[in-house]
């Protein structure tokens, strides 16, 4: 029998299973004990596990991440829930200069999960930063960003069994997405992408909130006879370049899609890696589809124009298909 859960419920289910399995796991964050977090991502865990293990904190991101790092060094397995990834700006030193570097400098494991919701939706510029690449760039951190409930549950379970800090990112617009989830021992390893849709003509590489858009674009292109392979990275570090490169060697064409500004983003990293590993197989330049270099506007009309839409992905595919045919 399979269960259908929303992405937030899937996260919660994965955390609950791991907390029951491992009493070293506890959660810190604002408004989590009763409210269950800003995205209902831990709703009910407060009642289930109590205020010692589901700890409401002051709005002190630096302190909650530092406390997570220090507790991890004593053998605990904290989850720091920042609610919005934008609030990580207040804990950047603790994430990048402490958590990320301690294993290297001190030889001590830091089993810390920092969960945050990111991705672009309504709410304006300060709650819609797509800074996942910042963390993926930082040696010492792992970054997961699932695109569906099943991966959310499986990847958070994996994250809670790793010995290094993980940024666990959940896209806002997917919070209510429903889907089947796996059982207590269904764990997705880090660094293993998923092929969401097989296809022979063009590879689209993406993750998180744009996986759905890429699949929609692929469906529309299929109607015109262009078969797209959609790869969902699932973890941004480690990157599963093996799956990406093998696909591009088959298709000869690649489009990389993300919601962040293009400059120095995950899409740029993937595009550069494809050209290093599969240049001779390429029939066209690798194209990126990313957001405009702009803070995110609140007006839905402006917002739609700022970030990649299905039509933008389709247009990029058309460009790589036309080249060198």
């Amino acid at each position, binding site marked *: 029998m399979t269960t259908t859960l929303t992405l937030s419920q899937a996260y919660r289910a994965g955390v609950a299973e791991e907390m029951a399995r491992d009493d070293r796991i*506890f959660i810190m964050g604002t408004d989590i004990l009763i409210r269950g977090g800003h995205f209902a991502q831990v709703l009910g865990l407060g009642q289930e596990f109590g205020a*010692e293990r589901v*700890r409401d*904190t*002051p709005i*002190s991101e*630096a*302190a*909650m*991440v*530092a*406390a*997570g*790092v*220090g*507790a*991890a*060094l*004593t*053998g*605990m397995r*904290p989850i720091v829930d920042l609610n919005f990834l934008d609030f990580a700006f207040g804990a950047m*030193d*603790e994430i990048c*200069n*402490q958590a990320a570097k*301690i*294993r*290297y*400098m*001190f*030889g*001590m494991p830091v089993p810390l999960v920092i969960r945050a919701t990111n991705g672009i939706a309504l709410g304006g510029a300060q709650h819609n930063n797509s800074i996942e690449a910042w963390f993926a760039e930082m*040696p*010492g951190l792992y970054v997961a960003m699932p695109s569906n409930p099943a991966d959310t549950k499986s990847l958070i379970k994996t994250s809670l069994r790793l010995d*290094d800090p993980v940024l666990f990112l959940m896209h806002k617009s997917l919070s209510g997405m429903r889907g089947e989830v796996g059982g207590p021992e269904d764990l997705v390893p*880090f*660094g293993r992408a998923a092929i969401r849709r097989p296809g022979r003509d063009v590879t689209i590489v993406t993750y998180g909130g744009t996986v759905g858009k890429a699949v929609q674009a692929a469906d529309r292109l299929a109607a015109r006879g262009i078969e797209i392979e959609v790869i969902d990275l699932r973890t941004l570090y*480690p990157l599963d*370049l093996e799956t990406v490169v093998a696909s591009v060697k088959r298709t000869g064409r690649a489009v990389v899609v993300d919601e962040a500004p293009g400059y120095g983003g995950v899409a740029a990293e993937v595009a550069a*890696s494809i050209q*290093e*590993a599969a240049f001779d197989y390429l029939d066209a330049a690798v194209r990126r589809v990313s957001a405009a270099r702009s803070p995110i506007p609140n007006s839905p009309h402006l917002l739609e124009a700022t970030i990649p839409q299905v039509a933008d992905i389709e247009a990029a595919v058309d460009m790589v298909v036309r080249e060198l045919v």
Partner: protein
Amino acid sequence: MTEVRERGEVTMDPAPIDFAGVSPAELIEWLRTMVLIRTFEHESVRLSLAGKIPGGIHSSEGQEAVAVGSIRALGPDDVVAGTHRSHHHALTKGLSPRSIMAELFGRADGCSGGRGGSMHLVDPSVNFFGSNGIVGAGVGLATGAALGFHLRKQPAIALGYVGDGGANTGRVWENVNLAALWKLPLIVICENNLYAVETRIDQSFAGESIAGRASGFGLPAIAVDGQDVVAVHRATAAARERALAGDGPTFIEARTYRYEGHNVGEYGVYRTQDEIAEWRTRKDPIDRLRSALTAGAALDDQAFESMVEEATATVAEAVRYADASAWPTLSGDRAAWPADQIEMGDR
């Protein structure tokens, strides 16, 4: 002038050291450790200027009593997290002089395998959670360790150091608030040496005193003479008792002074030679303990001289060890770093 004095300047003659409750054997060991720190720092400053120590150091000379007084009040399971100026903390917590010196030299036998350097000394086996290059960060790691002890119901406490400069960073107070709120077994010791790099505290600090600021967070906050090792020990021991009893954290402002510049080779014009001389001659923590012990007939000049000789020999051996230690290799370094953290194309 009151304000300046409140912020840490000890303008009167220091009070005599009160030995009540401390055994002569303990006092002798504390003095020995303080002499070791001073000897180590003298030599590391010299070696830094001579180019033997890559990257420079921050000397703790002058602040010995803060480290020794506080860390000697702890148990072996208690955690210490330091600052950018932490050789004295590391030596007192039990890192060997040779493992620190080899680390300063950047060698494979250093306590961090050459990865760390002066600001990233570490030894988990003695619960020293590192010196730290980021101002105020050690308080955060100590807060977390205290949270870990609380959750594990482990009878241990964590001590985080910060300086007067760190008393102006937000993260320190975020952590003090959290620890006070959750009654964590934490001690925060602010080593107020009056200068954040070259900025004097009265140019950077609003309010009456650091301890006064801390008291607003709802925890006991006291100021002690940081050049009196027994006073520091007494304050820390009381704070530890309180923490172990579940009564929460304590903030201690230890008023101290560094004799060297912020960094080695500094040419400072921000303070007078008279000021340095006054601290060195009238308030020196080693001189004060030595003369109090001598006056009480617990120590004679010969015993002190042999203490200095012993420290000199220990540090000389540490330097020989560091000099003989191999340079770390990148391949050895990579082997100890998770394979999946090594980029494709990494050389």
